[in-house]
């Protein structure tokens, strides 16, 4: 395990801690709006759903960004072999981020009174656009913050000719992060044009920028954790980024099907966004290859758990669930229903949230100089948030399928008493799985905040010994088997896609939901279960690896063995 060689790496700690606190609050807001879905009268008129949801989405974005910043600051000096440029600016960036978060939380509540703070034709306090709810004042601070981050990264990096693909990925990522934000800071009068530009920010951030930062950071973390070959990782980063943009640039068209833009987007969007999972399959495959690089047990189990979770949920949430609703013929049904948050929750928390948590698990023990830490809490927390989020996605997806049938196909009214009670069971399931998620989130926030600060008398992680034969479940995961798991996921994804497609059938339109219900009932639980089992299988395989220097013959060393110095 590496030591902290550069003092400015320590600046990343505060961003990780801020990330954890914001994450905790975001989960609480999410739980609150999930309960409001069950009983819409809860807090109605006091804290309206739209205010709480704006907090939920905004905090989600802010803590993911905080995690990105922390990770970039942590790896920046390692990539550059020198201290970060302008540590004073980074300290300012932290306080600016904290201030803008508090300001934004406060101003969102003005929506209940219709106060947007119009001045010079712009809404300065809050602007009521999904994901871009922050007002202009906050937007400007956020822009300055992005510019500082980009400047620090570019100033820290070595001369251009020494850059490898990871440098390029991060440099392009932080610059584009700043640039794309500019498309969201104007009031647009036309609804179609406003939605057109709003997706510039939302889609190109996620699909064009965050994905690039994600690929670069995952790549470098794998280099750090598994001594993976920088060249091989660089190859993966280049082609990953290239595929993200080749598919995602025009893939943005899948947001332009129904917002009042012309029909030809349906062709371009269906075609190119169907290719969007390609880089994710590629990334997925590379984590399989890279994790097998050093063939040793995990030193820092929680960090790798969350990286794996990030890449797998990217595959399942963004790749497969995104694929199912990316065709004009399926999107016409899924659009604007609960089917979409199923994809959004898995993709956003899974891909980007888990990466931030993984980085925190990697960096915080190093930053606090902890040689041994009890990894059990982190592992339990991973399974809780992972299973909790899969459950939430399941509830959204099935509830959404019922909603599509009753609301769109049958044309029943929303609050008139039909759609709402029909979804009630799944509405209840969301906060139920939300509680599982909350338990995991609370656990990992507690674990990471106090890691290295807890009483030293805590029981040391024991070395448990396992029988020589790891059994079928724990045997080494080979490429063929990983490929079969992946194929299984896509087969369930195909069920889901066909299920959404089947809403076009006359039989369904005339009132028989059997086909879409059966396909969704097979597809969603199947996909989410196979995902859970695959991650379990992958980790079991890694944990069963013998540690070469200490293991007695025939004895596998336990994974909870502390990270070695």
């Amino acid at each position, binding site marked *: 395990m590496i030591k902290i060689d550069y003092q400015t790496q320590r600046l990343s700690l505060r961003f990780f801690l801020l990330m954890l606190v914001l994450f905790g609050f975001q989960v609480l807001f999410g739980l609150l709006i999930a309960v409001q879905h069950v009983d819409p009268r809860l807090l109605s008129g006091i804290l309206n759903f739209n205010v709480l949801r704006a907090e939920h989405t905004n905090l989600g974005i802010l803590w993911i960004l905080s995690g990105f910043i922390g990770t970039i600051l942590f790896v920046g000096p390692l990539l550059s072999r020198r201290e970060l440029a302008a540590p004073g600016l980074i300290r300012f960036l932290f306080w600016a981020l904290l201030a803008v978060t508090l300001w934004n939380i406060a101003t969102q509540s003005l929506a209940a009174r219709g106060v947007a703070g119009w001045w010079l034709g712009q809404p300065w306090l809050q602007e009521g656009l999904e994901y871009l709810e922050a007002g202009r004042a906050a937007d400007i601070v956020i822009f300055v913050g992005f510019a500082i981050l980009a400047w620090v990264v570019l100033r820290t990096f070595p001369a251009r000719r020494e850059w490898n693909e990871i440098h390029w990925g991060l440099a392009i990522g932080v610059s584009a992060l700043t640039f794309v934000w500019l498309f969201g800071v104007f009031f647009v*009068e036309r609804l179609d044009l406003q939605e057109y530009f709003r997706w510039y920010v939302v889609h190109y951030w996620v699909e064009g920028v965050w994905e690039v930062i994600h690929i670069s950071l995952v790549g470098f973390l794998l280099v750090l954790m598994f001594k993976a070959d920088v060249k*091989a990782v660089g190859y993966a980063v280049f082609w990953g980024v290239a595929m993200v943009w080749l598919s995602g640039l025009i893939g943005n068209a899948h947001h332009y099907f129904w917002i009042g833009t012309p029909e030809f987007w349906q062709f371009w969007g269906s075609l190119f966004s169907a290719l969007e999972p390609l880089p994710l399959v590629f990334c997925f495959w590379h984590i399989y290859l890279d994790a097998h690089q050093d063939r040793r047990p995990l030193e820092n189990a929680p960090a790798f758990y969350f990286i794996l979770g990030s890449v797998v949920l990217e595959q399942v949430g963004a790749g497969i669930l995104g694929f199912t609703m990316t065709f004009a013929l399926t999107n016409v049904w899924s659009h604007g229903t609960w089917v979409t948050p199923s994809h959004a929750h898995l993709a956003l928390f899974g891909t980007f949230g888990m990466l931030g948590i993984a980085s925190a698990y990697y960096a915080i023990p190093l930053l606090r100089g902890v040689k041994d830490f009890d990894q059990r809490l982190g592992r339990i927390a991973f399974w809780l948030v992972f299973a909790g989020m899969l459950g939430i996605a399941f509830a959204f997806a099935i509830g959404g399928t019922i909603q599509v049938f009753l609301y769109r*196909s049958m044309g029943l009214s929303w609050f008139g008493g039909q759609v709402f009670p029909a979804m009630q069971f799944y509405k209840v399931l969301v906060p139920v799985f939300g509680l599982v998620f909350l338990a995991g989130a609370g656990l990992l926030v507690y674990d990471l905040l106090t890691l290295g600060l807890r009483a030293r008398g805590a029981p040391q992680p024991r070395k448990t010994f396992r029988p020589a034969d790891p059994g079928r479940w724990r045997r080494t995961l080979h490429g063929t088997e990983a490929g079969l798991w992946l194929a299984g996921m896509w087969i369930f994804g195909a069920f889901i896609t066909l299920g959404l497609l089947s809403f076009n059938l006359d039989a369904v339109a005339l009132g028989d939901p059997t086909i879409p219900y059966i396909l969704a009932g097979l597809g969603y639980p199947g996909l989410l279960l196979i995902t859970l089992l695959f991650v379990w299988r992958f980790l079991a395989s890694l944990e069963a690896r013998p540690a070469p220097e200490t293991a007695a013959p025939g004895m596998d060393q336990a994974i909870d063995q502390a990270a070695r110095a």
Partner: protein
Amino acid sequence: MSCLNGTDCRETAKRRSALAVLALMLAIFLLLSAWSFLPSRNQVVPDDIQYGGASAVEGKRVFQAYNCMGCHTIVGNGAYFGPDLTRIHAEAGPAWLAAFLPSAGGWPTSAAVRVQLQNPAIREDAGTDDLQAYLQRYPGAAERLEQRAGQHSLMPNLPLNAHEVAALIAFLKYTSSMHTEGWPPKPHANRRVPASWAPKAPMAGNGAAAGQTAAAASSPAPSSAGAQPQDLVARGRQLVSDLGCVACHATDQKRTVGPGWGQLAGHEVQLADGTTVTADEAYLARSIRQPDAQIVAGYPPHVMPSYDALIDEADMKAIVAYLNSL
């Protein structure tokens, strides 16, 4: 820069061609984008849509200021907590929206919609001032009255003033006339809704069926001269429910949209112009017939429509008797 195993795999050339394809895609994307917003596409623009002295652009500002898409969806984007609003103006029409928006916590009764039809702006927009013709033209309004009139809604009351309501209706009129490539999909005309989810018949006493006018249909026969005071109060209670008054007024002293009625009759009322009046019977009747004549301090004007045409003298007596009993 890297090629696995050091072999010559023409990696640099491959990367160059990938970047060239990317540039081509960027060009395609920008071309399609420019094409999308050409005037020749004839997509409606909010500048061209007016309603009640407000433009759709103003309405969009109101829509954003209240973060409507934080609960609803518009062109399918938003929060899935409430229904999609893209087509609501085309379905329910301006009179229903005008009746609903100021007091969103309660579903409008047909009387409340009828009152709105007296508003010249609404009459002009809807093309009729007759409730029957209106409901024929806007089947969404008929369905809403039939199934929910007079019940509580799940939406909180928002402090929308009269101009904001008009602006929102203008914006929703704009979105209704947008061409969205057939979204949301239209349900099949011959569909058979599974029995367990078929709409239930309206509950008795819950406002009026679409074809009837609430006030006339469900209120008792006109009272004879010798009606008991107790009957008069009961009738008044029925009337304020049928007319949809309770969507905005609480029967205690709480403020909902308008002032509460509890402890109102016979007490001093502070007016917006600084004067004070006693809430006698004449004041109560005037407040119902010409709501904007005297505005209570702290409340915006032009929110409550005039109920003059819907309430005859006998009904007014009953309502005042009911208010006196609170």
